[in-house]
């Protein structure tokens, strides 16, 4: 059976050509439709003068011509069909307008799910891959609450904060209810090809985001997660955001690249404050120092979006058992300023509280069972909303 080769198929095949990077592709597609561009590469069509200059290097033009075969076209089309990957290109009807007006739009965009999700109100949540319990909690909570308010949560499906934000956004309880139609649909921008799930432990989350919203990538199917693709991915992520919330970040790192890209695009950047002694929060605290608006609850983000924050009721009811007075005293230790960081060891708790091991163990057991503290690889951390 012969399928009609659409413009999108040509675009996918062009994007999958080696040696044709995002910049060259953008220039090529700015002057030619994909089918025409394909013919240009194969030397069957006259190139626009500014494009011709690009391929003037004998070697490059020759190499590209060699690769641009009908087999390549079919192979790209098949791998897209097999994994339900759709393609759009700059100038196409499907192409998200918000990206079309960007500084460095992806010339060809692959997506799985429903690309309409891009037309909602959008907030990006990003942060470090090595997060604290508090950071994880914050990301999950923001992801959940924004989704419930009908706002799309954008993130990168990386380890750490990214994954936790989308985990909040795809929480089953949100999507089971009849009201799930008004939910914001999550958006993920990834660096690898859409059939190459990275990191693997997020595969379930990846599928959930795809089911409820959209996963998109600039890379053609089969592209491995190469390091240089992540900063490129971050620029698309930044371009899609109306507001970018940084939950936890070190002074250097991928999140800060996204922040820079967002600054270039005049995207509102907000940051969740953290302890000044945690290196995990050094980046976000720096952003706050430079004048970013702080985020401590979802209403802050809603205000930044110009939405009515009054429709967002804070969860007044905390389902957890109130700790007994003795346990409360131990819980207070977690807020102790003199601890260098928020996670504490059993030793530190014992020294500070003067409680003996047996009673401390009992108290921690009760607090853990009720969801006040978690044990993370030997360190104890307090979780949940702060006890006002």
């Amino acid at each position, binding site marked *: 059976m012969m399928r009609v080769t659409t413009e999108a198929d040509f675009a996918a095949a062009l994007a999958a050509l080696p040696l044709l990077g995002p910049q060259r592709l953008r220039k090529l597609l700015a002057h030619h439709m994909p089918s025409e561009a394909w013919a240009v590469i194969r030397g069957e069509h006259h190139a626009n003068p500014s494009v011709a200059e690009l391929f003037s290097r004998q070697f490059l033009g020759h190499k590209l011509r060699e690769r641009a075969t009908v087999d390549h076209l079919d192979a790209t089309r098949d791998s897209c069909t097999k994994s339900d990957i759709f393609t759009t290109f700059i100038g196409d009807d499907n192409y998200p307008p918000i990206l079309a007006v960007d500084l460095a739009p992806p010339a060809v965009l692959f997506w799985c799910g429903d690309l309409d999700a891009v037309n909602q109100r959008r907030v990006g949540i990003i942060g470090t891959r090595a*997060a604290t319990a508090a950071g994880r909690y914050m990301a999950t909570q923001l992801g959940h609450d924004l989704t419930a308010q009908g706002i799309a949560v954008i993130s990168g499906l990386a380890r750490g904060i990214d994954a936790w934000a989308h*985990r909040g956004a795809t929480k089953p309880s949100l999507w089971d209810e009849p009201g799930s139609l008004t939910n914001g649909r999550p958006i993920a921008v990834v660096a690898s090809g859409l059939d190459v799930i990275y990191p693997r432990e997020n595969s379930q989350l990846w599928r959930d985001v795809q089911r409820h919203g959209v996963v998109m990538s600039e890379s053609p199917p089969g592209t491995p997660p190469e390091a240089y693709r992540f900063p490129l991915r971050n620029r698309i992520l930044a371009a899609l955001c109306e507001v970018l919330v940084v939950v936890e970040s070190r002074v250097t790192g991928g999140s800060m690249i996204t922040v820079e890209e967002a600054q270039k695009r005049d995207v509102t950047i907000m940051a969740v404050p953290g302890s000044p002694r945690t290196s995990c929060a050094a980046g976000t605290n720096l952003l706050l120092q430079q004048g970013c608006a702080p985020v401590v609850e979802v209403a802050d983000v809603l205000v930044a979006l110009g939405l009515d924050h009054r429709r967002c009721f804070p969860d007044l009811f905390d389902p957890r058992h109130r700790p007994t007075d003795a346990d409360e005293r131990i819980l207070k230790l977690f807020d102790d300023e003199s601890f260098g960081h928020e*996670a504490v060891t059993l*030793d530190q708790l014992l020294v500070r509280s003067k409680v003996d*091991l*047996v009673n401390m*163990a*009992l108290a921690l057991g009760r607090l853990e069972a009720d969801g006040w503290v978690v044990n993370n*690889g*030997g360190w104890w951390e307090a979780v949940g909303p702060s006890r006002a």
Partner: protein
Amino acid sequence: MFASMRSATLLGVQGRPLDVEVHVGVGLPGFTIVGQPDEACREARDRVRAALLSSGLSWPNRRITVNLALGGERKGGAGLDLAIAVGLLVTQEILAPECCSDFAFLAELGLDGSLRSVPGVVPLVGALTDRQVIVAPNCVSEARAVSRRSVYSVATLGELVSCLQGDTAWPQVIPQEHEGSNESADVVDMSDVRGQPAARQALEIAAAGAHHLLFIGPPGAGKSMLARRLPGILPQLEADDALMVTMIHSAANLAIPTGGLIRCPPFRSPHHSASMIAMVGGGTAAMRPGEISLASNGVLFLDELGEFAPSVLDALRQPLEDGLVRLSRAKSSVTLPAKFLLVGATNPCPCGEGAPGVCVCDERMRLRYLRRFSGPLLDRFDLRVAVNRPDVDDLLADEHGETSALVASRVARARHIAMTRSGCLNSMLTADLLDEHAALTRSAMQLVRSQLERGRLTGRGYHRIRRVARTIADLQGDLGSVDEQHVAAALALRIGIQPILLGDQS
């Protein structure tokens, strides 16, 4: 002419008596040793010849054949030199056969005729119960650890000949009876530890119940320092344990204290480059005991646990369960004791910091680091304690912690309770003995049930928690059933070392 002399060789940590038969007959002058000698044994020819000549004794220029009787197994070492030399003297009728028949000979000969010590004197002398044994002067105290009466020592071959002929009396051995005096000097005290109450308690519980212990913490948190204090709070070895430890150390040719018996529990901390053979034993024909046997009745401390070869660590699993290691080779197989208390120390992650918020490793890197220890090995650590660097206030405070002596007295009491109750330490309790001696109260059962249901505890972990809880109760003097508080403490000292991953928490 023929003579037969008694000596012994070493296999593992046991001595085996054997007869050295010497025959001198007509034929081309020459010297042959038969009966599967190893290279060191074969070299006896040159040493014995030189020793005889430099002692002013004669070397028969005839056909000499030496047979190491009770063949079938390979014999190693230079310890048979003296027996061969005396045998040659008997065949030359310099010595009468009857004046040698009550003796066994255990020494290497120097070229000047002096007697030198051989490895494994303690088990070797132990195997020669029916004879009086002649050893080199510098291993007399060792030899006397097993046999007080029947050990003699002379400095040279010439001296030995005159003693055996009855011309001179046996030289008096100077008794050096200050047992263990040089051992306790390098035992460090618990009072040096500042703060770190959980880690201290873990040490105390480990000592009282012989529970294996893992310290997880950043560099400089004092993991090694804590571990080195463990032998100090263990009780002194009892007579038969002390003898066993002394025999193993002697067989491995390690220094034995001047008192003869090793009284302090041994503390072995091999470097992480240790090979499989170095760890479990074997390697030579004599099957030298490895680190796990040397740590028998004491502590095996593995610092930087993650840096050990995975195969070496997994080789520990069977000895940890059985308390002994069976080494099988094509020509021989031995069983070596390996009942040790394992203490491990490791960093929590590649960057070493571990604490969430400080550590820069992402989840995958931490997991990969921790995956180096196989699950079964990790499960065998009853106590897993996170240690952090002590607070500055604690470090600078003048306040000293409890002394080792104080802790040791509590440990001894708890051990006594356990031994009188079940005849073994708590870590050795089998599942049915646990039901009998460590029944859980209703509230304790609920606590355990909730942990099991949440998947925090495996089946093996369940029994381990109960054993540790029993020890904690013993230390507190609660002799009845095990209560919620004991189980809670046991759970708090057995942290899950895996970081929280996506999917663990909803």
